[in-house]
């Protein structure tokens, strides 16, 4: 088809409604900025949640009297049956001692005297859960099992943090969808204005028998261009911002446990997704406008 002509008409539309183009493109830019920040945040949260989940496990001390029947006794069975439990691992008294020694490094040697029959430590089960948020509930259930002496885990702080991250993520999804809809609406509005100012041209095209696809094309291109224009600023800000932040924080957030995603290729993905959303939003917005107009009469 006559692509050159369609692009020329599209640019003409953009220029003719310069003010509207700028305002809708900048509104799209703000929307996409949120989306960009969310994407980077979300991918990092995913990573952090994963590493937190990896490191958080429930430590279950077994009462000395029940010890003889384990490792595969009644306590093991009961823990395994709790909903949300992913994995249960047995750790003998000697193994627990090894870990204690290791924790203290060189100084840990003094604990070596515990080794043998008089080992005062307890054998333990190390329990992993499917979801980080399950930990509290699973720990409660384990506490009720007969023969369990003590249940401990990474602490409510960790769990709360993970719950919060989860929450941020769901709010983010809703925000992204909401903002995309707003962007579609804004672009659709601009295209409506563009259509209005060329109502005569469209009506002539219809009278002489131009196909709908031909009439529609410049407007769809115009919508996509507005979307792409609107994506430049958020891509720059999100990309540069994250690279800067990553350098400044040294690749970790607060503590060593929270390792940030390396900026490359993350920023490329983010830029790609933003352009994709921009094109999609421009396409839908303009398509809706023209189609609505073309359906309006025979």
């Amino acid at each position, binding site marked *: *088809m*006559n692509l050159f*002509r369609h692009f020329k008409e599209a640019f003409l539309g953009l220029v003719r409604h310069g003010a509207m183009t700028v305002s809708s493109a900048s509104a799209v830019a703000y929307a996409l900025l949120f989306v960009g920040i969310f994407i980077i945040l979300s991918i990092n949260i995913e990573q952090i949640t994963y590493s937190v989940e990896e490191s958080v496990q429930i430590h279950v001390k077994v009462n000395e009297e029940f010890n003889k029947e384990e490792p595969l006794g009644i306590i093991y069975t009961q823990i395994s049956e709790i909903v949300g439990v992913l994995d249960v691992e047995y750790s003998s008294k000697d193994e627990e001692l090894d870990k204690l020694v290791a924790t203290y490094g060189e100084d840990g040697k003094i604990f070596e005297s515990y080794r043998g029959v008089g080992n005062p430590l307890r054998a333990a089960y190390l329990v992993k859960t499917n979801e980080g948020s399950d930990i509290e509930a699973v720990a409660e259930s384990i506490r009720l099992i007969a023969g369990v002496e003590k249940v401990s885990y990474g602490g409510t702080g960790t769990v709360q943090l993970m719950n919060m991250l989860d929450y941020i993520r769901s709010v983010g999804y809703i925000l992204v969808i909401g903002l995309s809809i707003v962007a579609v609406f804004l672009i659709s509005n601009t295209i409506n204005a563009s259509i209005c100012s060329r109502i*005569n*041209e469209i*009506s*002539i*095209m*219809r*009278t*002489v*028998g*131009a*196909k*709908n696809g*031909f*009439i529609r094309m410049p407007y769809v291109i115009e919508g996509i261009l507005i979307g792409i224009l609107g994506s430049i600023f958020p891509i720059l800000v999100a990309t540069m911002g994250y690279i800067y932040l990553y350098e400044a924080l040294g690749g970790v957030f607060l503590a060593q446990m929270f390792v940030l995603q390396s900026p490359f290729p993350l920023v490329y993905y983010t830029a790609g997704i933003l352009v994709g959303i921009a094109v999609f939003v421009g396409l839908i917005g303009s398509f809706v406008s023209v189609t609505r107009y073309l359906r309006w*009469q*025979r």
Partner: protein
Amino acid sequence: MVLMRNVSKTYKNGVNALHNINMTIEQGEFVYIIGPTGSGKSTLIKLLDGEEIPSGGLVEVVGINIGKLRRSKIPMFRRNVGVVFQDYKLLERKTVFENVYFALEAIGTPKLKARQRVREILHLVGLSDKMKSFPEQLSGGQLQRTAIARAIANQPKLLICDEPTGNLDPDMSTDIMLLLEKINREEGTTILMVTHDITLVNQFKKRTVLLYDGHIVADLAEGGYIKNEPVPTL
């Protein structure tokens, strides 16, 4: 070319614009449609170019049944029918050449062929020396000739003119009539012209269909009745 059998048209708001219209137009004919305001002339035109569909009866244009014409088929159908309006409907920002070219571009005519055809058609309507002028620089007659050039650029089989001389003085109107006759004669285009201008109808004698209140009350071939429907009490 055009066949209307027992055609009626009722708009959504309940207005009965046409009743029991029967009319046949052969290829190459030149026909006037006259009648007072509100008699249904424009409605008749809208049925012929597919803008409206009949509420009853059969409308066939170039062998296509308008009542059964799907939306997606309208563009291809329209290429058979040229339309000229009283207010020209030219694009102010385009020159005479561009206005005509626009119509050919819109239906995907290749560039070179389209340019060639525009020159040809502007020569036919006598506007070769005005190709680069903008609408605001032209007289009413020249504007209407541009509009006619645009309507026939694609060589439609049927040319419909809705009061083409409505905004023109008598001299210019005569000019336009001479041009339409030339198109009818040289290009073999069938022409259907709606007009209020009785002087013109008497000066250039053609078959004349008289609409009154949505009915055809007379269908005269150059002064002689060829058909006489029961005339409603006027």
